[in-house]
């Protein structure tokens, strides 16, 4: 292939990427601004709180309890190599709260909520329901996007907090039932070792991941192509983008909280 043509292709790809980034950023700013501007739709917010928060609890609970249990086993086995088995409570606590809790919950929300938002809004788009909203004097960003983004901002940190606790409980159950740890000492070590900054970072990550998950679902839904294929592509792209952005944001936020 001609080197100039390759360069042109590369340039085009970079420009497309930057343009997409710009479009998503503008969409996100618009979506966030509608959270604060009337009219507000409390019923839609209530439904979104239920769907994103309450109905995600089972998947969050199951994911984090197994993760916490596996983490305890890994730390115990790994720690045994240099006689450091006793650090299981501390590392499970810090691992769940700082890292695994928010990331696992964020990825579960991307899988469960982002896909559902994208598919729902994309279907509304291809069946002209979004056009119908406009003709009924209802702004789609206010009616569809703002309640979902706000609900994610509120509920995902709460889900992360619940996930952290259940993950630690999973580690506690494995450590006390299988690895011979004293229950009271395990809990004391967990509580003593955690710092307010650990918990704050966990909740901030939850809010950021929730916002990313909801905005990606809404963005790809609103910009879906036509027909079943368009809905499928929007759903797939939304989950891919949300998962990648959640992991990237996790890296950035970890740096902000603990390395800078």
């Amino acid at each position: 292939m001609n080197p100039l043509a390759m360069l042109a292709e590369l340039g085009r790809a970079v420009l497309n990427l930057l343009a997409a980034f710009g479009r998503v950023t503008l969409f996100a700013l618009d979506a966030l601004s509608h959270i604060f501007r009337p009219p507000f739709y409390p019923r839609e917010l209530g439904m979104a709180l239920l769907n994103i928060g309450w109905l995600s609890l089972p998947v969050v609970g199951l994911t984090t309890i197994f993760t916490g249990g596996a983490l305890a086993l890994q730390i115990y086995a790994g720690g045994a190599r240099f006689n450091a088995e006793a650090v299981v409570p501390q590392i499970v606590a810090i691992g769940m709260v700082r890292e695994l809790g928010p990331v696992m919950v964020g990825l579960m929300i991307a899988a469960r909520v982002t896909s559902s938002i994208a598919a729902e809004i994309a279907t509304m788009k291809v069946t002209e329901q979004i056009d119908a909203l406009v003709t009924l004097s209802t702004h789609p960003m206010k009616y569809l996007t703002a309640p979902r983004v706000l609900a994610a901002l509120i509920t995902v940190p709460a889900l992360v907090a619940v996930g952290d606790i259940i993950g630690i409980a999973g580690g506690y159950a494995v450590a006390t039932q299988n690895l011979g740890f004293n229950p009271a000492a395990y809990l004391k070590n967990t509580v003593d070792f955690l710092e307010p900054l650990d918990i704050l970072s966990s909740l901030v990550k939850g809010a950021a991941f929730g916002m990313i998950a909801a905005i990606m679902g809404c963005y790809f839904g609103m910009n879906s192509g036509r027909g079943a294929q368009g809905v499928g592509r929007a759903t797939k792209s939304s989950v891919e983008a949300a998962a990648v952005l959640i992991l990237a944001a996790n890296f950035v936020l970890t740096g902000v909280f603990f390395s800078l």
Partner: protein
Amino acid sequence: MIRMENVHKAFGDNHVLRGVNLEIPKGTSMVIIGGSGTGKSVALKCVLGLIKPDSGKIYVDGQDAATGNRDAFLAKFGMLFQGGALFDSLPIWQNVAFRLLRGPLKRPADYAREIAIDKLRRVGLRANVADLYPSELSGGMQKRVGLARAIAADPEIIFFDEPTTGLDPIMSGVINDLIREIVTEMGATAMTITHDMSSVRAIADNVAMLHDGVIQWTGPVSQLDSSGDPYVEQFISGSAEGPIEAVR
């Protein structure tokens, strides 16, 4: 009155509207006919502001559609979408009363429900349909619900996008008659797009033929069969021979 002046719209290289000029007097029913993909829906969506024209002007009651208070502008309109476009997550009565449950026209829920049931009756549906969801209704019933929603807030202007597509001839006749009755009864200005000639004859006061992005002919429905326009003649006869290419 709705007036479109030299409206152009292209999607990439596809120039759908190439200078549409059309006038719909207040209180009359205009039907736009034309083959599939000739830009009928695009023209209608341009008037509503769902699609922004590349150039040209659209006036509704003398007001430029591109300027002014958007909510007040849209409050004048009701629209029946081709597929109904009912909101799946809401029961039928909330679909019909959507506008009355939120925004500037908001009414108490009980009152909005009464109006919804009244409008459902007006389109021939029983009150027990009110609490069902759109997926529980047949295509014809969904069209009627869409029609009830379009007239729920007593709009001055009603748009009908392919109102009989996908319906059997009997149900098409029912919908056509309903549209005619409602438009006459409400004194509303109506704009319908269709390629169903039975709809044209049932609904129209005036007809406009859109082809190649421009209005090829317009006139009263009584002159449709004697228009002398080769596009109109070919369209109403359904012939493959004529100025409209059969393969597009």
